[in-house]
């Protein structure tokens, strides 16, 4: 019995109907990002971090002193898995289905996120490329600055609907639009 399985995004039900043209403030949902948890074993923290930061095609996101997320929007899970498992002293877990990845951008992005997170996102404090785990709309999220006015938000799948709705609510004043990136 051959079965062709359909992959379904958790926000499929939340983003339906006609897609409108994105406004300057826009929330973009990445459909199939590759996201791995990377855990460094005792004494290997620095080496693993270094390897992660030097890796091609993946962006490292800081979670804790020996834990990161490795994120890729360009290469597949198997490629990333292969690359990560070559890092000595690291254990990796595929979380691509366990996380939803959204990108919020626009001139009002800091005002909108000020209603969602308690962390100071001023560019001098939270620089481009910086990432951290934090509460975002009452859920644990990893937030990264990926551009001057662009932030990436990664949340657990089960919270994604809730966080998404809350982000949209907080963006109402600034005409936040949303849609899948692809």
């Amino acid at each position: 019995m051959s079965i062709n399985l359909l992959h379904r995004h958790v926000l499929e039900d939340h983003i339906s109907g006609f897609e409108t043209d994105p406004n300057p403030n826009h929330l973009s949902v990445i459909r199939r990002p590759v996201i791995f948890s990377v855990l460094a074993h005792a004494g290997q923290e620095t080496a693993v971090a270094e390897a992660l930061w030097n890796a091609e095609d993946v962006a490292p996101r800081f979670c804790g002193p020996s834990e990161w997320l490795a994120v890729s929007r360009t290469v597949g899970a198997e490629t990333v898995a292969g690359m990560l498992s070559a890092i000595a002293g690291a254990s990796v877990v595929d979380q691509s289905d366990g996380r939803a990845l959204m990108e919020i951008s626009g001139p009002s992005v800091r005002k909108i996120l000020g209603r969602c997170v308690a962390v100071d996102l001023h560019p001098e404090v939270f620089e481009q490329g910086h990432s951290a785990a934090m509460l975002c709309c009452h859920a644990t999220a990893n937030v990264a600055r990926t551009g001057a006015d662009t932030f990436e938000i990664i949340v657990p799948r089960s919270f994604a609907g809730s966080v998404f709705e809350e982000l949209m609510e907080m963006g109402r004043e600034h005409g936040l639009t949303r849609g899948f990136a692809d």
Partner: protein
Amino acid sequence: MTSYRLGSGGAINRGQSLTFTFDGRSYKGFDGDTLASALLANDQMLMARSFKYHRPRGVVTAGSAEPNALMTIGSGARAEPNARATTVELYNGLAAASQNRWPSLKHDFGAVNDLFSPFLGAGFYYKTFMWPGVLWEKLYEPLIRRAAGLGKATMQADPDRYEKSWAHCDLLVIGAGPTGLMAALAAGRAGVRVILADEGFRFGGSLLSESAAVGGRPAAEFTADVVEELASLSNVTLMPRTTVFGWYDDMVFGAVERVQKHVASPSPDLPMERLWRIVAKRAILATGAEERPLVFGGNDKPGVMTAGAARTYLNRYGVAVGGKVAVFTNGGSGYRTAADLLAKGVDVTAIIDARPQSADPVPDGLRIIRNGSVIATKGRHRIEGLIAERSGFEEVIGCDALAMSGGWSPIVHLMCQRGAKPVWSDEKQAFLAPDVGGAFVAAGAAAGQTSLGECLTDGAAKAHAALEALGRLVGSLETPEVEGEYDPSFAPLWYVPGARDKAFVDFQNDVHVGDLGLAQREGFRHIEHTKRYTTAGMATDQGKLGNVNTAGIVAGMRGVSPAEIGTTTFRPFYTPVSFGALAGTARAEHAAPVRTSPLHGWARKNGATFVESGLWYRSAWFPREGEKTWRESVDREVLNVRTHAGLCDVSTLGKIEIFGPGAAEFLDRIYSNSFLKLPVGRARYGLMLREDGIVFDDGTVSRLSENQYVMTTTTAFAAEVLAHLEFSAQTFWPELDVRFVSSTDQWAQMSLAGPKARIIMSRVVQDDISDAAFPYLAAREVTLRSGLKARLFRISFSGELAYELAVPAGYGEAVADAIMNAGREEGICAYGVEALNVLRVEKGHVTHSELDGRTTADDVGFGRMMAMQKPDFIGKRLSMRFGLTAADRLQLVGLKPVEADKEIKAGAHLLKDGAKPSLANDQGFVSSACFSPTLGHFIALGMLKSGRERIGERVMVWDGLRGSEVLSEVCPPVFVDPENSKLHL
């Protein structure tokens, strides 16, 4: 005409006329008016009735300290009671209504209270309504509430949105008066991140009421220039209509922004109010000072107000508060107001100066009564005159407004909200801000500075100090010159002797000097006791106007300095904050985050009824057409699993991936049973204890490879177990090389159970899953027929042949659909957590109903899972205590009713047959109960004293709460397939 709008002047836009109503009558005002200034411009001085005596009242202030002019704004769901007319920004169509009066503001029946006032003094309620107590709720309280009170809250749901936001800055400046503007300008020019917040809708504070010139220009022009420059700086955030109401730990300030309170038709995309949490490295308190009323007989008559308020209405709003204004003062403020009134052509009848002499310049032709006092006022709905007294001689002076000044009190509330008390200054005759460390300092009038020039200088100086501390000081700001300033000093005068009428200290609570005296005589001498006995300083204004006078008067009565009396405790909020703002978006569907399973869509498609379980929504049962009750659905699902097969969503179980050479040892110390020898490819049931020896949680651990495990936890304890592992790894055994991370969200996990489970699963999975190849407790990665990698576990909660299949969450729905299709011919059904619960009760499996924080492993029959030969595991040491090993502990048993049609309910107590229900006779309780469709009667699990020895005994299941008694037989807890033959098919 008494009060009226001047022909010109003021910071109002005369080109934009606004229509509004007060008690149903239509009025006109201008853009830039407050409700109070617009009412005064329309000669409406009577604005309210007082709280207790229902005395006619007008405005006393022009700002947020207003105790009298409380009104209900708006109607229907948007009606907001107790708004201060002095801070309500006028808009077109605003509808205001007076409060606490019947039938009308002018003819208020409750005013008879004033005649009975000798019986309504301080402590009146305590003394009068003492007994009988039962009458309190039914009679006294409703009576008091109707007679004395504030506005009524609407009973309708709030139609508006609210938001919360964080903000961060280097310097927070609270108050945008002269001091705050200079502070923000100095810091703004230096390039640091500045937030300037002011409760008003226009920046400038006292500068907007100022007649002096600043920097060679009118004060209003100077203000506009500074605000314009601040607005142009990208590092400066201006927050008008924002009250900083609280100072909290770690330099976090709470503020509320009234985003749309001043808008006729609010936008649905904007919040009505926004609550801010502002994190500041430094903060400057530039809240200014409050003018103190003078406490004299009849000082509450409409038309009596502070001199500063009269000046604000005049200069800022272009409103003369009267046609003939008298002034009663103990300092320069009265002279300044008189001069400004005269300059605008308003008649000033006299200045009554309490001081014997002063150096204040006297305008030409103005009569000064030095060493004078006011002992009574005339008129009812408005002051018509006053009786002045000097050296024993009395004189009636006609007036239709009286401007009074009793000196100034710095507004220091925020700095006193974290325990520090304000400090009395003999020199300033005021309570000053305490020293709370360098990060938060007072400046300008809030710091006791009295002149405008001093305030401007101090604002800049305090900003410079903050910049220096931040390491960002560059250059310094020059302070502009002030021309035409008055000497604002004053002589202390706490109350005026010889009063012929009540001399009010707290207008809002109708507390007069006599009440304070009574409190002292009756022993309520501590200022906190005086407050509670007299109610001085309570309610919506929290004594902003009266508290300092209260302290001064009590000090005078006791012959001590106000320093010895002190003030009552300052607490947030500075002014009232709506519940809407505090709740923010957390209401209705946004009250808490919702977690949905990856199989949520599958369950919905199959008609699930969902139940909230923590934050999760879980499928409870799947009703089919014709099924009228949940029991019908659940019974069908249970029988279907026992005879055919069922598919259940178990994705909500916690899943933790564990890695490292220290993982086996770590698990061995975490669980009470042994884990060192768990083979790769196998799952094991594990029991976790708390350090006190009580069971914490249960679950399974599967060894996927030499150094890789996956643990499951119960849904309810997923977060706690992860935290427990982290705590143990990080604080007990940091030397163990073990790492773990939650993968709960990564997997859609489903349990396929029933005698047909294997045949159905083998249609979906490529691998050989025969009993030989994949026996009970096998656990390993498999490949689905689509090529998808998945995890398969042969574990069972139902007692049937069962598999748990975990697939990446995004494929969950598709895989569940595929299994349902593959099992259609075998009679598969979807089943929910209710059926799962019945299946496990039938099988005697425990959950947190049994593992309720009181049970040991042995209590629930898991004594063999205590691997006491291990040197250590969490909970081992205290599990050996006498109390936890006693023979008469409650033990897990099964229960079945002797009469088969009787129902046992969870929570019922167990008694020996014939024993009376009492604590002494209590033998245990029912932990779980359900109808067993397999057996055809109710069954239960219970915890019974020495239960395992009592199999076959009859006990009474006594449910006192729901009034039932069911004679039941104690039996082993496993009702179905005790030999586990179905498990090993």
